[in-house]
């Protein structure tokens, strides 16, 4: 109940300041839309199916790119975390690649993969890959020694040690990386779709701009925000479930 009051309050605050900015600015409505105008635009592309189609396209790309990326990053992270002498060589490379915005690679990505779904998939992949890889490697290195002792005691060797003991033991720590990667990947989805593609929410933004439809631009922005929030809530639920099962006290603001 309290939560609902906060939500409604926040919504009112946004609407009032938005309307106020529109009035005070005095811009042409084609350049800066009012809330009402945006709602009309929203109703328009909702009715003709454009919005849902773009949402579907974006979510499909996101889930495909994100899932491939995190699965590969976790598998690689497990192996590299265990074989630290190999990681010692690759770590500097990862540290250099990690801070580069995936968008910077776009010209090369388009060159190699052409246009279509691939550029945004590759960008989402890159955005999710490094947070998960690094958190997995760190988690393997920081595993509770008692798990390794128990495994050793009961004669559990590789590859069962990685799959049966190490991966589940460190999963709560990887989950934090998964959460982080989800947010980053979602941010870069839009950036990826702004270039080299004719569909998705990112394209909706470019298309609206080119047609001077600021109301649709705003609709796309709000949709991206709300979907990002929903994805984040979903992974928070998953994290909470894992923490409960593993018996880890929940962080109060997780």
């Amino acid at each position, binding site marked *: 109940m309290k939560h609902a009051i906060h939500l409604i309050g926040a919504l009112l605050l946004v609407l009032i300041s938005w309307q106020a900015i529109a009035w005070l600015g005095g811009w042409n409505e084609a350049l800066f839309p009012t809330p009402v105008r945006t709602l009309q635009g929203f109703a328009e592309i909702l009715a003709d199916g454009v919005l849902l189609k773009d949402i579907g396209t974006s979510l499909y790309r996101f889930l495909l790119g994100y899932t491939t990326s995190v699965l590969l990053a976790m598998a690689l992270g497990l192996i590299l975390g265990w074989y630290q002498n190999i990681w010692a060589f690759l770590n500097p490379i990862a540290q250099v690649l990690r801070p580069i915005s995936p968008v910077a690679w776009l010209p090369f990505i388009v060159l190699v993969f052409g246009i279509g779904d691939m550029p945004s998939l590759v960008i989402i992949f890159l955005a999710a890959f490094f947070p998960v890889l690094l958190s997995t490697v760190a988690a393997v290195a920081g595993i509770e020694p*008692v798990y390794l002792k128990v495994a050793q005691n*009961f004669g559990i060797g590789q590859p069962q040690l990685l799959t049966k003991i190490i991966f589940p033991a460190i999963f709560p720590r990887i989950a934090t990386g998964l959460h982080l990667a989800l947010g980053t990947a979602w941010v870069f989805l839009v950036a990826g779709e702004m270039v080299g593609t004719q569909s998705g929410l990112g394209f909706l933004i470019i298309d609206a701009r080119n047609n001077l439809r600021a109301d649709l631009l705003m609709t796309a922005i709000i949709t991206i925000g709300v979907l990002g929030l929903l994805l984040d809530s979903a992974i928070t639920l998953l994290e909470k479930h894992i923490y409960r099962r593993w018996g880890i006290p929940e962080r109060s603001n997780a």
Partner: protein
Amino acid sequence: MSYIDIQDVSRNYSQNGQTFCALQQVNLRISRGEFICLLGPSGCGKSTLLNILAGFDKVSEGSITIGGAPVTKPSVKHVTIFQNYGLLPWRTVEKNVELGLESLSMPADKRQKIAQKYLSLVGLKEFAQSHPAELSGGMQQRVAIARALAVDPEILFMDEPFAALDALTRMKLQDEISAINRSQHKTIIFVTHDIDEAVVLADRIVIMTPNPGRIKTIIPVDLHGQRDRTSPDFLRIRDHVFAEFSLKPADTTEYYI
């Protein structure tokens, strides 16, 4: 020749060019089925000795044989029980108990049967499908004991297994492990810093002192069967151990164990 033979064992650690002697010239012989308590304050090397016996650590000098064979690595025949239980939180209680059986290429239904048997032994049959986080500390340690017994080991190494439990639970588990020692005929090496615990459990108490870690004395405990913590015999041995640590009132040394 005795079952476990510890001969002139030393363990040195070097750190920043300095050598630290955790164990110095330790000699001990243990017979099959014996319940040995390694008792002493922090830093006396009791856990180091246990780790070496269990194969998790190596000697710097000397030798250790169990059943005539030198100890080189951990074995499923010698299971260690840890203070923080070492249960796998993502597995149910039953699947935790089955863990050690999974490497033994045994059909799943037989594994389950064995797990059930040892869960009943520790009184947790109805918690088979729970997860460790849902159990109290004492129950979790019982699961760890069931998991260790499930592989039918010859030796149980116990590293301060009850130190994290409240006093009443601890006494209950002491009685249980003592009964298991008698009924299952396991050799048990038990590390503790609790004098009462050692007197309740041990056939012989090995008293160790720090800097460097070594054995000071060995006190045989001539009490048999289930021990009464309030009997005069119990108090007599307890007194003896207190005296060994210079904890008798006449002494002014401050010693917290």
